[in-house]
């Protein structure tokens, strides 16, 4: 078996999710090659070569891949991937965008967001917002798979010594052009990979009050998340949303503040190791999954928590 892992990166740094995907590839077993597609992404190729268990890194460095447009990546990965038995990418917004395109171009099904590998053709994935867990078997010759990064412990990012080769395949589908992007800036850890996440919901009442959570987060090195209610109310930007339609997180500690715990929110955080809920409504569903629940007004509890830390 030969497995192709598509690296997730921002053209300068390899994202940790790639190491989680390599771990999923190792669970399948076989030779693991990594494809880095981007623009001026040589450093990412070097970083990927150090990942434990990788035998070869291919770097497709061209302006057409600079913004990870699904049309161009889809054609590149379908071309490179057709000689592999498995093609894997992280189930982030980039992977979710181009991988189904790869699958369709290869005329195979895709298995989305796997959380466990049972065998080379059988995988476990959540359905119905994580309220059911399906074991699916693929009969396709090439398995196209997106991986839930939080479900696999990352391989070591140092110590590997894969060969790095340049890949001179330029695929410009000519269907789309990058216009611009607005990226939220934050000094805090990345939400999807943070060890601790502090999240606020509608109970925060406004965006200004999220500063209280940020102060607590900074004390314990946490990322700040939000429920959809908080995003829809305009308190915080949407890239902070945790849930079925936002990011899936599984930190050591998840602190839910003023979040009721709708099915769609639980889908994004119920695999956290320890869950703390702070809510004044003792009937809130979040308490059914919380390891530690505090029934209190968050506007009293959060400043107190900040002092205690």
């Amino acid at each position: 078996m030969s497995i192709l892992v598509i690296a997730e990166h921002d053209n300068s740094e390899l994202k940790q999710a790639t190491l989680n995907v390599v771990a999923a590839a190792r669970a399948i077993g076989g030779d693991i090659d990594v494809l880095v597609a981007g623009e001026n992404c040589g450093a990412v190729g070097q970083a990927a070569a150090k990942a434990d268990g990788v035998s070869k890194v291919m770097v497709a460095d061209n302006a057409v891949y600079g913004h990870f447009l699904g049309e161009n990546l889809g054609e590149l990965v379908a071309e490179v991937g057709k000689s592999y038995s498995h093609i894997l990418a992280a189930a982030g917004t980039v992977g979710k965008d181009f991988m189904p395109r790869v699958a369709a171009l290869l005329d195979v099904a895709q298995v989305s967001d796997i959380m466990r590998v049972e065998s080379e053709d059988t995988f476990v994935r959540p359905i119905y917002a994580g309220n059911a867990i399906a074991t699916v078997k693929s009969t396709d010759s090439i398995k196209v798979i997106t991986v839930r990064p939080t479900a696999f412990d990352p391989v070591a990012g140092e110590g590997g010594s894969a060969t790095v080769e340049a890949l001179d395949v330029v695929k410009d589908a000519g269907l789309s052009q990058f216009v611009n992007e607005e990226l939220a800036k934050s000094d805090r850890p990345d939400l999807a990979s943070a060890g601790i996440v502090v999240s606020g919901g509608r109970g925060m009442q406004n965006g200004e009050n999220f500063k209280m959570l940020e102060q607590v987060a900074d004390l314990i090195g946490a990322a700040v998340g939000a429920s959809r209610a908080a995003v829809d109310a305009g308190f915080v930007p949407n890239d902070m949303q945790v849930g079925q339609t936002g990011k899936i997180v599984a930190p050591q500690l998840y602190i839910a503040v003023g979040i009721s715990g709708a099915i769609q929110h639980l889908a994004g955080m119920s695999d956290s190791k320890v869950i703390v809920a702070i809510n004044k409504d003792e009937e809130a569903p979040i308490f059914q999954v919380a390891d530690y629940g505090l029934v209190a007004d968050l506007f009293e509890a959060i400043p107190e928590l900040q002092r205690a830390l």
Partner: protein
Amino acid sequence: MKVLVAVKRVIDYNVKVRVKPDNTGVDLANVKMAMNPFCEIAVEEAVRLKEKGVASEIVVVSIGPKACQEQIRTALALGADRGIHIETDEEVQSLEAAKLLKSVVEKEEPKLVILGKQSIDSDNNQTGQMLAALTGMGQGTFASEVVVEGDKVNVTREVDGGLMTVALNLPAVVTTDLRLNEPRYASLPNIMKAKKKPLDSMSPADLGVELAPRLSTLKVEAPAARQAGVKVADVAELVDKLKNEAKVI
């Protein structure tokens, strides 16, 4: 221009699903069904494009058993002009759905195809991208804003770090994110009118597509239940537990 919208009938998003005791799937008998929330947003966006004078006709399509016609009628009540029902009682997976939709696209030749980004039952997030690949169109996935300008459509997409805007040549495929719009409700008069709107029914065979599932579901289980937690009396006890019992801070 003509806009094609694909809608799916799924379990209502508020229903707490139950896994069947024999682990063959989720119990859908006597469970409330509805239009997938992301599909509602797709219909709403198409209707808004029509109200702006950008879209001239909205065709809504759904694949599945006879009961899917309810969801097509809902879309017609919301403002779509006519419906296409691809009737089958078989399970339809994403790749097959994309192939069926491709046949419809070839017949109808829409300038824009709008789908939800994912259905809340299978959570696959694949069909729009697969349709775009099969038809050779560009794709604007996870859209939070759609602006048609001449022979292009500018799509603002929700990506991991924030927002990203791409320009796509038309015809194109767009998949909706939750923040694209707030769907309207259908009024009673519009529901009545929708009953008279045309709805064509056809089979996968009529479209020349053979259903050939590539994935088989071996079993479906309930997720591991979390241990019931404890309530703490105050912040001091909470911090103490986190430090000394859970050892997470």
